[in-house]
């Protein structure tokens, strides 16, 4: 089976500085891939290169064997959607208006939303448990609700692949688990492929099928959580002393921090 997203010798970044260096990776259909790595390791830059927000300096990204930069932008956005950490806007749209924007890739310039588009938006609101918020303004929502609405908008694009940049960064643990459970369910039931950046190693361990540990713009280690989250890997990349045991419930690796004075 050929990969859904194939990254070949990707190099790129900002102006003259390359943040990502010669990186190759395959994302398969149905993957739940989590990218981890210290600050400045190039996680967000990698995601921006994969979503066309940045143009690679060398190498290429292929979606179903098509170079993404050569795909029509709307076509690409019907295949792959993106969820950012949080949206901030000085214009207070309603939840429904925001989610309907997810239909833009499916509409031509003069075409306004049809009944089908509205039903699609309502369905995604229901799926993310935000249907009761549809007439609220987005700046009235809590961070957790807003994140679920943004996920609903991305789902309204009907993507096969969902990119997320630390979607749980601003959420408390309850909302984190709620959002991740939702993603897991979409991954399992609708075979939505997920590529997500995360900082929390234990959440990443609990939810990911595959992990990629980035260090200085290169892949330090890719594989199952058990293969990636070893104390040697983490100490080398994060320069931090940790213990790794296993989560008593899931059996997945569990990273325990060891403060300096106790080492």
């Amino acid at each position, binding site marked *: 089976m050929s990969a859904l997203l194939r990254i070949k010798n990707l190099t790129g970044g900002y102006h003259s500085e390359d943040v990502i260096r010669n990186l190759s990776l395959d994302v398969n259909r149905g993957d739940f891939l989590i990218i981890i790595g210290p600050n400045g390791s190039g996680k967000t830059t990698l995601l921006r290169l994969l979503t066309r927000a940045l143009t690679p300096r060398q190498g290429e990204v292929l979606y179903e064997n098509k170079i993404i930069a050569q795909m029509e932008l709307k076509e690409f*956005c019907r295949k792959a959607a993106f969820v950012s950490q949080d949206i901030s806007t000085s214009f207070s749209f309603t939840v429904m208006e925001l989610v309907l*924007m997810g239909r833009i*890739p499916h509409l031509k310039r003069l075409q*306004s939303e049809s009944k089908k588009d509205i039903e699609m938006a309502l369905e995604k609101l229901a799926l993310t448990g935000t249907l009761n918020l549809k007439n609220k303004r987005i700046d009235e929502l809590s961070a957790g609700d807003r994140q679920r609405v943004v996920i609903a908008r991305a789902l309204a694009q009907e993507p096969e692949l969902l990119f997320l940049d630390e979607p749980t960064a601003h959420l408390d643990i309850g909302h984190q688990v709620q959002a991740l459970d939702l993603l897991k369910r979409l991954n399992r039931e609708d075979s939505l492929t997920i590529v997500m950046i995360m900082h929390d190693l234990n959440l990443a361990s609990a939810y990911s099928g595959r992990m990629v540990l980035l260090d200085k713009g290169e892949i330090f280690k890719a594989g199952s959580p058990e293969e990636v989250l070893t104390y040697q890997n983490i100490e080398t990349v994060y320069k931090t002393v940790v213990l790794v045991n296993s989560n008593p419930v899931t059996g997945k690796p569990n990273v325990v921090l060891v403060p300096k004075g106790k080492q």
Partner: protein
Amino acid sequence: MRLKLKFLILLIALCAAVVFGLIKGAVNIPLANLLFNEHRVIFNLRLLRVIAAILAGGGLAVSGIALQAILRNPLAEPYLLGTSSGAGLAAVSAVIAGVSRVYLPLAAFLGAIASIIIVYNLARERGAIADESLILSGVVISVAFSSLIVFLVSLFGNEAMHEMNWWLWGSLQVYDYKLLLLVAFPILLGICAVYLFAQDLNAISLGEEEAMHLGIDVQNVKKIVILITAVITASLICICGIIGFVGLIVPHMMRLIVGPNHKVLIPATCLAAAIFMIFCDLLSRTFFSPIEVPIGVITAIIGAPVFIFLLKKGKRAL
């Protein structure tokens, strides 16, 4: 369905404003009498003013909305890109050079377009337009051109000064219906063109990368929209000079009333701004009649306090 009601109210208010604009003035003439021959001239003059007011209101409102969305700044206004001083400089230069009055609107139009071309090119970097660069270049060009205007006026005195006042504070006194028809065309076309980008403006107002992730070619949309607003404001400056605050206040008020969705906001603001302009024009010609107060003074006197009130009250909606 409450939205339909709001539009109905706006439409009725616009009709009422048009009737008021026709019958009120230095002399009040009942609507029925206006159509008689003896009042025909007054009727025609007032009708031209009302049409100019509607065009100016709609054009300024839409230009303001479009720039506010692409710059994600509710404080952007139609003259942000240096059009006002560009037009002023060209007009003053033309007066000093002894160009016939007939060509002044053309000079103003060209001056406005020229200033936008300069500002746009100053702000362009690697084929993209950075928001801050655009605002800053606009400010720099405005200041530079304004100082040139003052320089010319101080050298050549009264004649240029008189012309300047007219440009700076605006007037809806239109004598030439051919000119009005000529500029009505690009203004109306421009308003419709911006409306075609309503959903793009919604997405861009969330952020350029957000919009890109929704499949919008942000850089191209920005260029096209800036060009359209340039044509609208330059055309307006030709016939009515510079009228401040309308493109700022009315969109802001309407955002509070109908929300920020551009599909609704654009038509609602066009109607509201047209009503507002007819009303301001009425004040400008009746308040100190027979002296006519420049309309820009009226819009500023009404606009500034309203703006301060909204700023204090509605921080959230800004």
